[in-house]
């Protein structure tokens, strides 16, 4: 059990909103599914998130965002990952994101967007299927 490969996930809150309840619920759910969750707290810049993801060698970045700045901050994370040759890291997102923005975010490279009401089991399944 202790020797197997573990999925490492960075849960981060980019930007200026101060609500981390959702991020903590997700972190806890992923923990209970056997993953190692690195939780970095509020108000992270995309640069901080990407550097942290690299040093922690995570498989997944989960970005929780409720501020409305998702169309700027989320593609920025993707762009920085590419600059660092780390685009193999799966990036998913959750929070208050309007339906009409989701397609654009996916085109920018966000693997999936989970809106409020999504069962945590769905997120866990998605991660387990998509991490090689």
């Amino acid at each position, binding site marked *: 059990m*202790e*020797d197997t490969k*573990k999925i490492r996930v960075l849960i981060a809150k980019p930007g200026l909103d101060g609500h981390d309840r959702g991020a903590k619920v997700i972190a806890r759910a992923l*923990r209970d599914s056997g993953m*190692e969750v690195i939780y970095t707290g509020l108000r992270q810049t995309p640069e901080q998130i990407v550097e942290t993801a*690299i*040093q922690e060698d995570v498989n997944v970045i989960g970005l929780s965002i409720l501020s409305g700045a998702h169309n700027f901050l989320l593609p920025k994370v993707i762009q920085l990952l590419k600059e*660092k040759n780390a685009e193999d890291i799966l990036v998913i997102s959750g929070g208050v994101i309007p339906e009409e923005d989701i397609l654009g975010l996916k085109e920018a490279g966000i693997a999936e967007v989970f809106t409020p009401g999504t069962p945590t089991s769905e997120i866990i399944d998605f991660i387990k299927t998509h991490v090689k």
Partner: protein
Amino acid sequence: MDTIEAVLNGNKRSIAKLITLIEEKSHDAKEILKKIYTHTGKARIIGITGAPGSGKSSLVDKLAKILRSKNKKIGIIAVDPTSPFTGGAILGDRIRMQDLALDEGVFIRSMGTRGALGGLSKACYDAAKVLDASGMDYILIETVGVGQSEIDIAKLADIVLLVMVPGMGDDVQAIKAGIMEIGDIFVINKSDKDGADRLVTEIETALGLCFEKKELKPPVIKTIATEGYGIEELVETIDVLWEYLTKKDYLKIKRTNRIRQEIIGLLTESVLNNIMTTYSEKIEFLVEKAVKRQIDPYSAAEIIIKEKSL
């Protein structure tokens, strides 16, 4: 062998990937560790241990900042507990270290204990070597929040900071065995709280009892990590202690013991693995017999040892 060169040059992605290989117990990791070992031994390894919530992460954050202002390169390993039930973990020490994330001269890695019970993870020891070889001047290792007896950090660190806070018990706690015996420097954090001075007195008294024969009593330093109070003094104290340890050969003795323990540990693991694979059937057979009380466990073990040496 690109990885080796990249690690020695301090490439963060390569360091991070190598630490993952170590955590996964990959054979490749061992081969790389063999090759980088000659480059280790230069960094000062400082352990930070103490109860949950005593302020270890905040203290590491402030220590790193002062060391950075002296242009030192810092590697940080922060350990948090892995669930014994699910194998998952929440690694949250970075929350207190956000400002360090973009500092070129800092590398931070969070680790789950993954079944180890002594306050560290097994991979910590080798991860520290990687950071050492990559050219870090200081390696700060933050243990999980500990209780009374998780003392693995004493096996890994050159200097152990034991972080305590006021209001966690009476003076008898200060004379108990275990964790109280491994502190090289006692840090009384949150020292603006009631009882800080009394705690300092209690610890100094207790240390006076234990360390009468030694020339250097562990210093006791008051800090308020969140405000940066006392941190300069702490860094100076670490430097003074370092001078003392190196001058008196104490550091050499510590490190020699550490390396001896490591080799013995590796030997034990490998011999045990060897026995477990070669004699698995025989062991099961003896287990069955012992369950039926036809043989005792002591004789069962002796039978295997005898067969092994034949």
